[in-house]
């Protein structure tokens, strides 16, 4: 059944070779250092992030985000963040919600009633499942100008073909490009 109201966007930051995490999870590759003069100035992230209602992530992405938060702070502010997991985690923050139920129910019964713009921030398994259930509306990919060569791939053998419609493509001064697609469902 088609969900209503909510737009579900899958977002990833990846290397040109489609990798989202180095084998050791270090993130210094986010600093590009090779400017693209014709690029646009980066958007004001605060205004942009405001439009997002809710984040969804898998348990491994959550663990990585927790690990990174030690050095860089929690990346998702106090927005509701739904962590898909059958495992139990100790986390008292009121905006972190653990969900061990069905993905389809989560979207249909929960997300579509409460939110307008939900961002799925990883990982590959969650994205694969959502695509398979035809629950993804948009995909936004930010590609950084590097080939990582090894590490975790974002799209790793999806079960079927998905046609996309390009909504927007642009480049920033730091050499990052942003590709924005609608998923033809």
């Amino acid at each position: 059944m088609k969900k209503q109201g909510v737009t579900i966007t899958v977002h990833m930051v990846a290397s040109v070779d489609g990798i989202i995490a180095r084998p050791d999870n270090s993130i210094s590759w986010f600093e590009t250092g090779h400017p693209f003069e014709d690029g646009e100035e980066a958007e004001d992230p605060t205004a942009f992030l405001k439009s997002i209602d809710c984040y969804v992530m898998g348990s491994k992405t959550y663990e990585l985000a927790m690990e990174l938060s030690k050095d860089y702070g929690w990346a998702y502010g106090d927005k509701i963040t739904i962590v898909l997991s059958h495992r139990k985690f100790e986390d008292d923050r009121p905006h972190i919600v653990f969900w061990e139920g069905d993905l389809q129910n989560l979207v249909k019964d929960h997300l579509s009633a409460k939110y307008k713009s939900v961002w799925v921030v990883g990982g590959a398994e969650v994205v694969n499942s959502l695509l398979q259930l035809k629950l993804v509306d948009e995909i936004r990919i930010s590609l950084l100008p590097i080939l990582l060569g090894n590490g975790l791939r974002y799209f790793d053998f999806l079960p079927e073909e998905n046609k996309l419609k390009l909504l927007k493509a642009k480049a920033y001064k730091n050499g990052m490009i942003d590709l924005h697609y609608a998923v033809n469902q």
Partner: protein
Amino acid sequence: MRKLKIFIAMSLDGFIAKPDDDLSFLKAVEKEGEDYGYEAFTSGIDTLIIGRKTYDYVVREIGSQHYDNGSNDVYIITRKPKPRKGKTIFYSGDLKELVLKLKSESGKDIYCDGGAEIIHQLLVQDLVDELIISIIPVLLGEGTRLFKKGRPEQTLKLQSIKSFETGLVQVNYLRNRIKSL
């Protein structure tokens, strides 16, 4: 010095072909009078490097004149050496040696038209100078990947990005060998 360039199309999830060399996904971006810069690109090259399997495929589907137009030097990378055919040379020696020799000679740039295995070897040995990738608006799910794992990290410099009505986005990257601070 002459550059070694890659000009290739891939799906958003990184595949250059579906299983069994199926390239039908490219039909979705075919448009009368639009060659996505291919002719301009090939006018800047005079030497090709192609893997044997890709060569066989193209000869079967299009014909050998696709590569050997009488003026291009065409190198087919193969394990089984064969006598040269016109300007087509079947090369079974060391790939790096060949590329370094070609780069040291004068002429236009060098184009590697695949396949994935040759591109992988060239990237592993850091011999690629420019990547022009046309991203097709589709997730294929399976097939032949442009980028196999097991390569060293390499920083790039974005040169240009261009999007087309068909939804194809073409990005052009230079290999940036200068270490940033």
